[in-house]
């Protein structure tokens, strides 16, 4: 009589392997860190800021490299964008508050895909006497990885990118974040 071979249990082994893979994927998902703050991630954070050479609306040259020694705030803006218009009061307050601080930050509006005349009209109506710089070919937006306006960036006096806020600013956020950055990286 032929001896019968005992069949190996393939199904439980396969199920165990699939189970282990699923558990590993679940662990990766669970261990992914959420971003609890208002600050957006960017590969540029902590890196030297991209070169920005352009002109202001008054046709004066602007070179970010020459702003070293000051905290610089870039606000990417379009006059037809609703959140950009909505956050304008926060920017006015921030600019006003900076006047009473040591080493006040320099603020710049980076015009994103918009006409000079529309931007001038917006600021004439809504105030804001800081510099507005052109980005006619979109190269500054691409260099900073700005996909959608508004976005606000802070660059430290050594020229390193320290903060990115994607979307509309909340009340007091810029003042608070800049104070924290000044403590962390020195003013």
């Amino acid at each position: 009589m032929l001896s019968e071979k005992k069949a190996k249990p393939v199904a439980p082994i396969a199920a165990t392997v699939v189970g282990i893979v699923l558990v590993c994927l679940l662990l990766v998902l669970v261990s992914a860190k959420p971003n609890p703050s208002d600050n957006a991630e960017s590969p540029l954070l902590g890196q030297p800021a991209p070169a920005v050479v352009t002109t202001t609306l008054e046709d004066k040259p602007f070179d970010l490299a020459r702003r070293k020694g000051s905290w610089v705030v870039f606000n990417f803006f379009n006059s037809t964008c609703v959140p950009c218009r909505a956050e304008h009061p926060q920017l006015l307050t921030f600019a006003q508050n900076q006047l009473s601080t040591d080493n006040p930050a320099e603020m710049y509006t980076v015009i994103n895909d918009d006409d000079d005349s529309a931007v001038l009209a917006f600021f004439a109506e809504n105030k804001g006497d800081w510099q507005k710089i052109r980005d006619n070919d979109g190269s500054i937006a691409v260099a900073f990885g700005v996909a959608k306006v508004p976005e606000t960036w802070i660059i430290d006096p050594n020229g390193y990118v320290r903060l990115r806020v994607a979307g509309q600013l909340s009340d007091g956020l810029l003042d608070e974040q800049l104070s924290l950055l000044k403590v962390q990286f020195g003013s």
Partner: protein
Amino acid sequence: MSAKNKFNNKYSWIFMAALASALLIFGGLRDSGPRSQQDRIDAITMRLACPTCQGESVYVSRASAAEAIRAEVARQVGSGLRTDDETIAYIEQRFGSEVLLLPRSSGIDSLVWALPIAALICGAAALGVVFRKWRTADDGAASAEDSALVEAAMASKNVTDLDA
């Protein structure tokens, strides 16, 4: 099947597998010749996802962010300072890896490439094991139990024939 036929069959499969692999590698690595700047811009932008759209490449999107990226790619290709991969890496450094339509072949992204291949190999190996087992189990020889059943049936038939 004779041993010689089995031998020939096995080596013809190996030969076919080697030939298919060689053709795939040749097809993947062959140089298609010089390309124009526009060809390079198109090829690069087809590999980049529009950061503000769903499922559109920078090549097809009309969104302002995609247009700005296309303009930047055109500038970099025009300057001749960066290769295609370096230009894509520049955009990735700004917008993050989400902008890549083709996942990277390193880090955790490489699982996207490795897992299907691993699944294919495991599946083929499992099929091989199962087919081998079936062949071993069904070797054509009757079991002792089967033989006993046949003998009993034959004996019963003989008795019936004699009675008739």
